């Protein structure tokens, strides 16, 4: 055994050894994620007969297209609500005194730590015909509004449940922005709004992008919230998949719907990643001072 080959072997080992540490994680991912996903894909083109029949069905019926459209529409809307409400909230967290900030963080985290089921059931209590919202409205002579078992109810639930996923990345990004940059802009004659809009907002874009992605993609796959807060006419894709798999035992069709959801999500993810990369390059070329 020559010295050189011994060295080569060491080198191989030093690259292989860290990979071995990943083995448990990979084993878990392959077992509980990759295998079921591949199995669903396989079933979608083989059950009940081989071919693209399940996809023709999934994309050929107006009912399914409506559900797919509603799913992406709801996810987009929930993301926008989270941006509109989450951005000022995160900004407030950054600029407020430590004690207020602690309270604001608690307001974000306590619901985050509470079970999804419990939060959704709480919304049922709040939104139902004789719930708090409608009692208050009745008190001032309005309503009753139909909130529970409508798409409005679903949107309220989605936005609330997903809000922490917007606020936390936004806060993390905003917190690392050097606020002196704003002062610098002001000292160079920028108006408060202009300093905020042209310095602070662009620097918080990475957090905004991360938060929006987290909210949007999670909203796409939501099951419990639309199932409990919406009527069957407001159902989203995850519920349709459940219907096919569990009610009709049509695993091929369920698989096809799942693959469609996955594909569209990946395409969107890819598009966003591309946009961010382009934006990044432009930042570098223009030379905006980073932190």
């Amino acid at each position, binding site marked *: 055994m020559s010295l050189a080959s011994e060295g080569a072997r060491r080198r191989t080992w030093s690259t292989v050894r860290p990979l071995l540490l990943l083995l448990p994680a990979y084993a878990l991912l392959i077992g509980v994620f990759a295998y079921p996903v591949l199995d669903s894909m396989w079933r979608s083109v083989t059950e009940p007969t081989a071919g693209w029949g399940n996809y023709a069905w999934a994309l050929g019926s107006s009912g399914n297209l*409506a*559900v797919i459209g509603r799913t992406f529409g709801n996810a987009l809307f929930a993301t926008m609500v989270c941006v509109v409400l989450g951005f000022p909230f995160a900004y407030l967290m950054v600029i407020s005194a430590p004690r207020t900030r602690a309270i604001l963080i608690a307001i974000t985290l306590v619901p985050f730590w509470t079970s999804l089921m419990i939060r959704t059931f709480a919304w049922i209590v709040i939104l139902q015909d*004789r719930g708090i919202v409608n009692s208050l409205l009745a008190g001032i002579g309005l309503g009753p509004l139909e909130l529970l078992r409508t798409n409005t109810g679903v949107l309220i639930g989605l936005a609330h449940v997903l809000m922490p996923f917007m606020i936390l990345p936004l806060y993390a990004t905003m917190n690392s922005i050097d606020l002196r940059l704003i002062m610098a802009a002001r000292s160079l004659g920028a108006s408060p709004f202009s300093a905020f809009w042209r310095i602070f907002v662009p620097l918080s874009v990475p957090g905004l992008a991360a938060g929006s992605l987290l909210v949007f993609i999670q909203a796409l796959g939501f099951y419990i919230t639309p199932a409990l807060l919406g009527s069957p006419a407001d159902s989203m894709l995850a519920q349709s998949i459940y219907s096919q798999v*569990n009610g*009709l035992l049509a695993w091929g069709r369920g698989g096809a719907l799942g693959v469609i959801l996955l594909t569209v999500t990946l395409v969107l993810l890819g598009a966003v990643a591309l946009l961010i990369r382009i934006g990044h390059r432009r930042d570098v070329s223009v030379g905006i001072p980073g932190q």
Partner: protein
Amino acid sequence: MAKNLVKWPVLGVALAWGLTSCQASASAPEIDLGSGPAKVGTIKANSLKGVTLTLTSWGGVFQDGQVKAASDPFAAESGATMLQDGPTEYSKVKAQVEGKNVTWDIVDTDVIWASKQCGPDGLFMDLDMTIVDTSHAPANLVGKCYIPAMQYGYVVVYNTTKYPTPPTGWVDFFDTTKFPGKRAIAGFEDIAPGVFEGALLADGVSPDKLYPLDVDRAYKKINPLRSSLIYWKTGAESEQMLESGEADMALVWSGRAYAAAKNGAKIKPVWNQALIIADALGVPKNAKNPKAAFAYLNYYLGATQQAKLSELTSYSPVHDEAKPQLDAVAKQYLTTDPQIRKQMIPSNSEWWSKNYDTELVRWLDWLKG
């Protein structure tokens, strides 16, 4: 160190292989259930020591009742360990049978779904009639691969404060001018006798000409009702809709109506032309210990067990001589009471099991709006 690391995955594979081969070679232990024909409600003492059975049902008051009335005494007499799981999910039954890894030995299902599972393509094993004695169960509710778990009514209940003049039947259920208000019906991934029969009866079809159902005509009657409909997905949700007063009328399982009434909901049942339905208990194919599971079914059907099940759940017994002692509220919901029974209409599970798949697809599409 490096050498040790190489061994790990090898060891893991070996271990996994060892585990699967163990599982495959494990066979059902020999069971002696005694000699002679099966006698309903009995089990040979200590005959199932070391056997573990899992009953899967729908949770809530009903499953608690099954455990107390049948599983607990069965475990005590036979020596078997009785576990429970739930709620029943048909896809899980399918996955377990196909994967040959059945952990649910006895499954409570809808009777229509169960009747679709008999035979070579189904998911349930044929009953072993040398172990299960069905002579005291209602004959029309016993299938080749299932026994009835209980019988009950699919019944319209109404809020007594909302409607001082009570609705008297299906015609009123579909009349939103005389009886404005929200109606709750089932709206989930299962379909059963209920709103379709109701629509046809309201439309003037006579009970003896109900089947085969004219489903097109039923939908025509249901369509105008859509804006007044809300949907429950679980029994618990239907109960909640009654207790919170969200539903002014509801088509619900009689046991859930009873539970809501017991909790103080101001409701009353309309037995006129309510439907008689049942749940089924079956044993999935590839179950590890079918003999023991069938012994449980035989025990479950006993008169004492059925009486106790009724007392605990208000669902009606499936033994012709069971004599449950019920309180005043529960008596209002006992569908085997002759005064109630004579007003009710039997549902035709044969028609439903033949048309289940097409009708379920149509129903789910309709629900999506």
